[in-house]
């Protein structure tokens, strides 16, 4: 590329404009902070936070640092995103496939689902579930058990807690099973390519993933027991459930609305992906004698996935970003804990907002780097 002097003009003007704007902002920020007696710095992160968070995955109370509070918020955000992504994917794939069903009723049902949930603002849906639908649930003392162990009440969902013994061994057995499956798959592929032999990898994989953990129960001394929530009376009319795991209603409302909303978009991605595979591909595969299952597995899915995955990852990212709406119903996520409570206490607006934005930014940039890598990997190798 040869260097041209006349190209320099527009670039210089833009750069100078950008630098001027940023300079103006930083200059003002400095003066404003001097006037208000605020000093800039991230030292406050190690100070004692002295506020409490009602729901946290790691041990936390007021005596921990602000950084710990940040971690609590981040973990809560990740928790809600992961649950939401799993549920949204399940619903989305089912609905997306249903939209292609030849059955008129199912097709329309799925279409109406998508049209309905997609066109209502997410925040409104969150409010609806939290303030209207979940408020209609029974009080703890009136709640009926679902399957005898789950209790859905106005104060949240109570589920039995797992109590493990020697959990490590169980965990390692699962890891070992996964590694074994990967190795076997690799070998099987090699075998098929060199000798044309086919091994029922799927069956072996299912066997392994069940048998190894089972063995760990029988031999490794792993045992599992459940702690079922029990009703406990605090005062004359006040009851709570004791023991077990309790999921706060905020979490339920948030995951429910996030997954129902995002599922509509995922459904559209799935539909577009499957429709995007040409009819000729299916017919060609059938005409060379592949069974319907093989057509699906070897011809349709690899091509459909190539279309489905990039936009779906985008939807996952959207879900993660949308989980910040949690602040509206007081679910202690990153925005509420850190950009809300911590900001109020310290008054360090620039530092805290920048950390929060940077966190989301790095989350989404890392996912999009991963996606680009994957895209490159599965892209059709054109000559």
């Amino acid at each position: 590329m040869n260097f041209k002097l006349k190209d320099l003009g527009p670039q210089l003007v833009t750069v100078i404009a950008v630098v001027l704007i940023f300079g103006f902002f930083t200059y003002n920020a400095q003066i404003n902070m001097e006037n208000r007696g605020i000093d800039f710095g991230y030292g406050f992160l190690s100070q004692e936070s002295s506020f409490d968070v009602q729901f946290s995955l790691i041990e936390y109370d007021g005596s921990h640092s602000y950084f710990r509070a940040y971690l609590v918020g981040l973990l809560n955000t990740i928790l809600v995103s992961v649950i939401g992504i799993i549920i949204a994917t399940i619903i989305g794939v089912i609905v997306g496939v249903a939209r292609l069903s030849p059955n008129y009723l199912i097709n329309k049902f799925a279409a109406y689902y998508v049209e309905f949930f997609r066109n209502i603002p997410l925040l409104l849906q969150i409010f609806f579930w939290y303030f209207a639908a979940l408020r209609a649930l029974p009080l703890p003392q009136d709640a009926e058990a679902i399957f005898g162990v789950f209790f859905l009440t106005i104060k949240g969902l109570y589920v039995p807690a797992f109590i493990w013994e020697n959990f490590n061994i169980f965990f390692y057995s699962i890891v070992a099973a996964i590694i074994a499956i990967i190795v076997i798959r690799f070998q099987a592929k090699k075998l098929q390519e060199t000798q044309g032999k086919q091994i029922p990898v799927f069956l072996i994989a299912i066997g392994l993933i069940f048998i190894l953990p089972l063995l760990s129960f029988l031999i490794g001394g792993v045992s599992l027991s459940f702690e079922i929530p029990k009703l406990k009376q605090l005062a004359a009319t006040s009851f709570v459930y004791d023991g077990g795991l309790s999921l706060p209603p905020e979490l339920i409302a948030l995951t429910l609305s996030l997954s129902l909303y995002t599922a509509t978009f995922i459904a559209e991605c799935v539909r577009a992906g499957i429709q995007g595979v040409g009819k000729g591909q299916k017919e060609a595969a059938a005409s060379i004698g592949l069974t319907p299952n093989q057509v699906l597995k070897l011809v349709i899915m690899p091509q459909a996935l190539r279309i489905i995955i990039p936009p779906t990852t985008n939807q996952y990212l959207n879900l993660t970003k949308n989980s910040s709406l949690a602040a509206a119903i007081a679910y202690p996520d990153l925005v509420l804990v850190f950009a809300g409570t911590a900001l109020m206490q310290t008054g360090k607006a620039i530092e805290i907002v920048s950390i929060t934005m940077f966190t989301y930014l790095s989350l989404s940039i890392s996912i999009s780097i991963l996606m680009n890598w994957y895209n490159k990997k599965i892209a059709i190798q054109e000559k």
Partner: protein
Amino acid sequence: MNNINFLKPDKSNLNTFLYTGSFLFFISVLDVFLNSFFKFNFIGFLPNFLSFFMPLILGFIGLHFIRIEYSGIKQLDLINKHINTNNFNAILSLLIIFIIIKSTPPILNWFFIEASFSGDSKDVCTGSGACWTYIKVWMRRFMYGMYPNAEQWRINLSFIALALLGSVGYFATDRFKKYLTLYYVVIYPLIAFLFIFFFISGGPVFFDFSYGIIAAILSIIVGFFIPSKFKFYYFLIVPFALYILLKYFLFFEEYIELGKLEGLNWVETGAWGGLSLTFIISFFCLIFCFPIGMAFALGRRSSFPLIRYISIGFIEFWRGVPLITVLFMSAVMFPMFLPADFFIDKLVRCIIAISLFEAAYVAEVIRGGLQALPRGQYEAAKSLGMGYWKMHIFVILPQALKLVIPGIANTFLALVKDTPLIFVVGLLEIVGMLNLAKTNPEWLGFAMEGYVFAAIIFWIICYAMSKYSYNLEQKYKTDR
């Protein structure tokens, strides 16, 4: 009569299968229907478990019987093809039919039959249905926020006027069609801006607004007699000159004060709210985010590396953060970046934040359209001797924008759906107003009605937008 194989219905015993099958299917649907509408269960004598699943079993057998290929009856073939292709589909169809029948009565009850519509206090809401009285009483608040009741005609008038001005495109004759783009891109937003900030906001600036309108009307009327050669310069200069003339020389402000002309009452933006605020914010963000997005899309495709990197940085930054943090930033961080005596209104800050945020998404959508255009278009335009701007304005952008109509419509839909988030900075549009009304001690316990009401409104708006974009897409579709 041939021998009958009940597992394999065929055409030879068509009538037998058809009648028994339809009868069983009819019985199953009837049972569910009676059960849900009249609380009457005529197979209730069966054991509980069996009676629960009976309709499903009967319906399944019925559908199995009428699944006869090429029966020769048109309707039957149609049914079989659409809801009854195999056993699995039959069960799913049955389940959906039952769910629809089962859920109709409670929904009807809640919405209409048990609901209360009349009256204007909470006392009339005694039934188990919805309390639409609540919506009726709070209607003005949901529509206009805290905007004073006596002044609400201003909002109505400006919205009607803007809608009428906006629909000009449909009635324009061919002679004026060529000015439409200019009108919609420059003049219309300007008029809308004048309306919103001078008419709805009110105060002494109202006179500026009237000068603006007078200047615009006068210059347009005179504009018809100007030769087309000078029209551009005429419209560039004359309206503003007229405006300044009116403002500073003819009706100067002392004159107004002396003449005891009262302006409109000033209503601060904090009092705006409800659905009208949703419209105002969506409208302005739509107008602003489009050109910004277009600029950054072009910047990202630019051949100058520095401009490209700046554009990429801008787009990826806004796309990477949630809108709620952007609004947080506009509320708590942005004032720190401005000179101490410089104050920007909350609403304006909000509109800027949302516009920048959505502009990044618009930029990505437009970039998709630019990339989808074949290289030949660029080369052809260049070989005609067009420069960068000419090439983009007359050749590239018209085609690229046509391609991305659905994507842009989706972004705009997302924008409208994002407006409730402004609760973060303390502005209350319709969802925020609902949350406020919900906590009113006199009207506790009607959250459901409020959210359903807002959901219906948003659904209608968004659905209409998506249908409109679909129509646009069909209209501008050009086959290659």
